[in-house]
């Protein structure tokens, strides 16, 4: 049954292409609309004939949008760095040590992955308000840690498990401490996974909407998803601009994810299925 005839394969390939196209066409349409002149979007038929970057120029000339771009970068990068810095030692400890409460801690960290932001939205907003951190990027960074950290710990633990202990033992004999062994032996070996995990945390923070909506009301700390919402002004409204803004948010997420797909997909499934 594993040997199929070439014509059959060809037919299945053709079907695959059609199905995938239908599945992705809504997103492709967004991208295409972002490079069509406004008059073509509103009445130019389905097939694009003329291309323009005027919508990108228009939104990149808007100060609120640029501020939001900067804020999203700050939050995203901070979240990526902090997530990996917290997840790496935690994953190492879970992989290499046996200690009291290990299973409890593992469960606790993974359990947060299963907890959607909405479930903790109300208490978090009230707490953050009481400590006076609303309308700060700090608060947003902190809440965004929940998005990627558990999965990061889980994925890195998987990678560390796969490294033979003997490699570190040799380093320990050479006079390194445990942390030295981790830093010198383990980290270089799983560097691609670490980068992938950081990227993943960045991507999740980059497109996050709910927490930003609930915590941010000042324009100087708005992130991109909120700025995109701000483009809906009936007096100077342009679908092209909204789609261009959407593309600016979507493209980094899509590209980074495709680049690190190999590292991410396995971990995601493990985290999802075993959770």
């Amino acid at each position, binding site marked *: 049954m594993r040997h199929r005839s070439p014509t059959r394969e060809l037919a299945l390939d053709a079907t695959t292409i059609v199905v995938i196209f239908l599945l992705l066409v809504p997103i492709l349409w967004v991208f295409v609309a972002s490079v069509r002149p406004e008059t073509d979007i509103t009445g130019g038929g389905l097939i694009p004939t003329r291309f323009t970057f005027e919508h990108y120029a228009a939104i990149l000339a808007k100060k609120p949008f640029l501020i939001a771009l900067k804020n999203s970068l700050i939050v995203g990068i901070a979240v990526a760095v902090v997530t990996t810095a917290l997840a790496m030692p935690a994953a190492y400890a879970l992989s290499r040590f046996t200690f009291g409460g290990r299973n409890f801690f593992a469960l606790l960290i993974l359990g947060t992955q299963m907890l959607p932001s909405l479930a903790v939205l109300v208490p978090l907003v009230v707490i953050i308000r009481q400590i006076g951190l609303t309308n700060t990027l700090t608060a947003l960074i902190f809440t965004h840690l929940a998005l990627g950290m558990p999965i990061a710990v889980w994925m890195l633990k998987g990678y560390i498990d796969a490294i033979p202990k003997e490699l570190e033992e040799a380093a320990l004999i050479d006079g390194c401490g445990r942390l030295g062994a981790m830093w010198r032996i383990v980290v270089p070996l799983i560097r691609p996974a670490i980068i992938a995990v950081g990227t993943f945390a960045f991507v999740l923070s980059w497109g996050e909407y709910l927490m930003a909506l609930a915590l941010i*009301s000042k324009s100087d700390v708005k992130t991109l998803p909120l700025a995109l919402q701000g483009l809906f002004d009936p007096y100077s409204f342009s679908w092209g601009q909204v789609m261009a803004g959407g593309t600016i948010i979507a493209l980094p997420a899509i590209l980074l994810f495709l680049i690190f797909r190999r590292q991410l997909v396995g971990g995601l499934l493990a985290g999802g299925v075993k959770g």
Partner: protein
Amino acid sequence: MRIKALLAATALAAGLAASPALAETNVTFWQFSTRDADIAAWNDAIAAFEKANPDIKVNMEIVPWSEQQQRLVSALSAGGLPDVSMLGNNVVAQFQAAGALAPLDDYIAAYDKETGDDFAANVWPGDKGYYNLAGKWWASPVNVETRALYYRKDLFKAAGLDPDKPPQTWEQFAADAKTLTKDGVYGAGLSMSLDYFTVQNFMSAYLGYGARMLNDEGKCGFDTPEFKQALEVYTSIYKEKATHPDAPTMNGDTFRKGFRDGKFAMILSDPGLYKDLQNDKAPFLDDVGIAFVPAGAKNRSGFLGGWPLVLWDASENKEAAAKWILFATHGEALKNLATKGGFIPGNVALAKQVPWTEFPYPVFVEQLQDAKAYQAPSEAIPQMGQLEVDTIQKAVQAVALGQKSTDEATAELCTAINDVLAR
């Protein structure tokens, strides 16, 4: 006397300017209008204020009308309120009841003393009940607003209607809207969506038919034949396809934009729309007629709108913030804002001057005689903010979409209103 006041203000400003440079105080200000003309006028006012008060910097943020209630409420619960903001006249009571506003009395007294002005005497009579609560002033009016009927005489002619006879009643309005709907133009830019615009138009109908939001016990008074009749007539305009097919979800500003683009033959709107049409150099400008809002079976009722500036109690710069409020709501600053934005100033003395004696303003000033609050004849209530965003429009939308009968929608509306009142 006014000139004297201005001189005094200038002298005061000059005195301040001459005093040794103080550390700069920042005043954040939420401004709700997204119209270019308004934004430019506010920027001018800020520039003039900062020139007169070099130690104060006003940071204006534009928070669209459609978002402001949600933004203010979430800032109230999560922090991040501005120092000064605009506010809808009917929600001043809500935020005052929540303890979120600061009274302006001390600043007003000082201002009156310095300038020889009389703040209270220059507030429109209808506004006093909104802004003077518990014996204190909580807001300083920028404008008063009412709606009138804009209609396109050219389209009336083309549809075989008499361009000098705009509809006088809601029934005629509905009938004319249907006649005018053709060739890609909709008869009326009438909103059925969960937008302020809906209740601001619909209130003319329900008050006109004699319905009251609150009965003598202070509970929902809408469950009456008068209200149902108004709801019926109003929503018939959508059911008869005499307005835009997306009217049940369209944003109010989109209707206004639509009239400017020539997509609607009639719309109920404020004097600012005429200013916009002038700025647009609309090709049909000379064919635009302005008349009173349609009347109901009982009377003619206009929308009583308007927005003041308020001082938020959380502000750490109250002194500077109040100075900005009083600057922007008086004298040349207000005159400039009102002329450029095309609205009627919330200052009675100012409204008696040119250009408010010229077309199109007099029809609006006259319409103001009939202008009433949503809950008229009852007093302002703190819950109006909630009622205004989430209840009446929902009934209109439900009937327009054919989801509920007029009876069902009215019954549910009353349940919803009583729920909010009982919280």
